[in-house]
């Protein structure tokens, strides 16, 4: 009987099988990378109504984060400063700057400035700034090096896996209290030792990894 298919088709199933496995792995990997917050959310840099530069204020002038974000040690939210905070300085310094027009208008008309949110955790996630700051997690651990950002952008994925990574192994992210707002701190060689001491000092248990820790 004549052959229906040419001889090379004998090997075809094997090739097809290998190819499908490869395709599944590669597509899965690509989706896993490109559709993840790491790729989608990192780098989000909206244009703000007022061209405020963290680089100038924090990097060049060396202001502390808590000068403006006063709630960060006491409250779940760090707080965007009220217009009054800006004007405390800027009614003297660069009082006529074009860039500050909106701030002055806000001061005069009592209308708030509408800033655009950069770091957003979903509504079903409970996040408390003060709980992290008071145990020694630095600002830069989640926000990146703000002191070099002309316009603030999202530096970390803020995905659930990213949160859990630290919650499961927090030791590398604990710092001395005077280094909390330091933007360029790197863990010293004896970090493990320090972390153990810090945890004993503050009586910190392992951070929660229960569902209800964040999804309250």
């Amino acid at each position, binding site marked *: 009987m004549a052959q229906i298919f040419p001889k090379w088709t004998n090997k075809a199933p094997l090739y097809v099988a290998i190819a499908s496995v490869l395709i599944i792995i590669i597509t899965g990997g690509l989706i896993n990378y490109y559709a993840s917050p790491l790729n*989608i*959310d990192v780098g*989000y840099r*909206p244009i703000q109504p007022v061209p405020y530069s963290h680089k100038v204020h924090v990097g060049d002038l060396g202001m502390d984060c808590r000068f403006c974000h*006063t*709630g960060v040690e*006491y*409250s*779940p*939210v760090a*707080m*965007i*400063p*009220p*217009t*009054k905070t800006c004007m405390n300085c800027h009614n003297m310094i660069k009082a006529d700057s074009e860039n500050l027009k909106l701030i002055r208008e*806000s*001061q005069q008309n*009592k*209308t*708030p*400035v*509408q*800033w*655009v*949110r950069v770091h*957003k955790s979903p509504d079903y996630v409970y996040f408390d*700034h003060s709980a992290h700051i008071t145990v020694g997690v630095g600002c830069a651990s989640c926000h990146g090096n703000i002191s070099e950002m002309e316009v603030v952008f999202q530096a970390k994925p803020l995905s659930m896996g990213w949160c859990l990574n630290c919650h499961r192994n927090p030791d590398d992210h604990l710092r001395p209290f005077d280094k909390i707002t330091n933007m360029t701190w790197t863990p010293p060689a004896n970090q493990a030792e320090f972390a153990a001491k810090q945890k004993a000092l503050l009586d910190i248990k392992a951070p929660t990894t229960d569902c209800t820790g964040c999804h309250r």
Partner: protein
Amino acid sequence: MSNTINSAVGGKKYWRSLDHLAETPEFKDLVQKEFPQGASELTDPVSRRKFLSLMGASMALAGLTSCRRPVEKIIPYVVKPEEIIPGKPQYYATNMPFGTESFGLLVESHEGRPTKIEGNPSHPTTKGSSNVFMQAEMLNLYDPDRSKQILENGMVSNWDKYRAAWNQEAQNYSENGGEGLAVLTESFASPTLKRLANAFLEKYPRARWVTYDSISDENIYKGLMAATGVMARPNYEFSKASVVLSLDADFLQMDSNDIQYSREFAGRRRVRSEKDSMNRLYVVEGTFSITGGMADHRLRVQSGQVGMFAAALAAELKAQGLAINAPQVSASFDAKWLKALAADLIANKGQSLVLGGRRQPAEVHALVALINDALLNTGKTVSYSVNPDAQVSNLESLVELTNAMNKGEISALFMLGGNPIYQAPADLAFTDGLA
């Protein structure tokens, strides 16, 4: 364009107006506006395809835009109030008048918006606990039916107009002493409101001040009035009562002061050392209540028969040797239950407590006071107090008011709170009186 409307080619021609028939320029213009250029392309197969492909492309692009993050605004204060830390709640201590009672509350507030009510831990009426009414009060604050402005005949008005209108009216009433003027309120015990009410009645001595609540302690006050001659209210000391008999009184959930009474009652149930003993609760009621569920001994009696039961109890107490002026009764209840109850009450003279529910008529409360007195409980587990500021609900005064309204004797009625159209007894025809 007009030929698409006149599309009945070859058949009868239909027209919708004389202009249409005559094909005047105005009509053509109108049609052109109604069906603009390009809409007719949908009837052309090629254009239709083009339209769909364009739609498809725009849908695809719309899909892409949805990948972009929605812009969310953060709106800070212009000048931050000093005491507010955004994200941190503030707690305000306040009071919630409830009938002639009052509850001490702590209200949680987020950036100026109250979100939760709990009892105030340092206030004796609540000590940090709350009840259903307090929890529900929060919804009242955000009730969309709450009136936000002055309305006049359903139209938005303002305070100035209201004052002007009332000043005009007030002229007449101050001349005739308030004849035809009436105020309807819910019961209250606020000293300020009482003072204002007295001032009002001083100025308009012939005006009526009517207080009515559909659910209140009215019967209790009236019963004690009958028994003692003063408008007094009872205060129970559950912490001193070893045997408690509740006659249809749901003091653990629905009756006045339930929070305080629940705590004190529970305190006597808790056994912390070998010297502690538990109290015993008898409940006689017609429907299942939380209190009935807590009872050690519960007797199911029709609500209307509870008075009879109280009388039978008095008779039984007398039969067992207590000095009490018992009325004659013919109804028969579970004799064994009654005997045991009476014996228990007598054995705990001075540490027993009998209380009647607010559903029961005044006579029951008078009898309850009598029984408590005979059991030497007065001054120990139950005391009576008079609140000069209490304005107690009074059904009779509402009846009088309604009758006066129906006779046309009332020319102005102020309703301060309450919803008598909904709450007043239906056979009173209060609504007719308003018309």
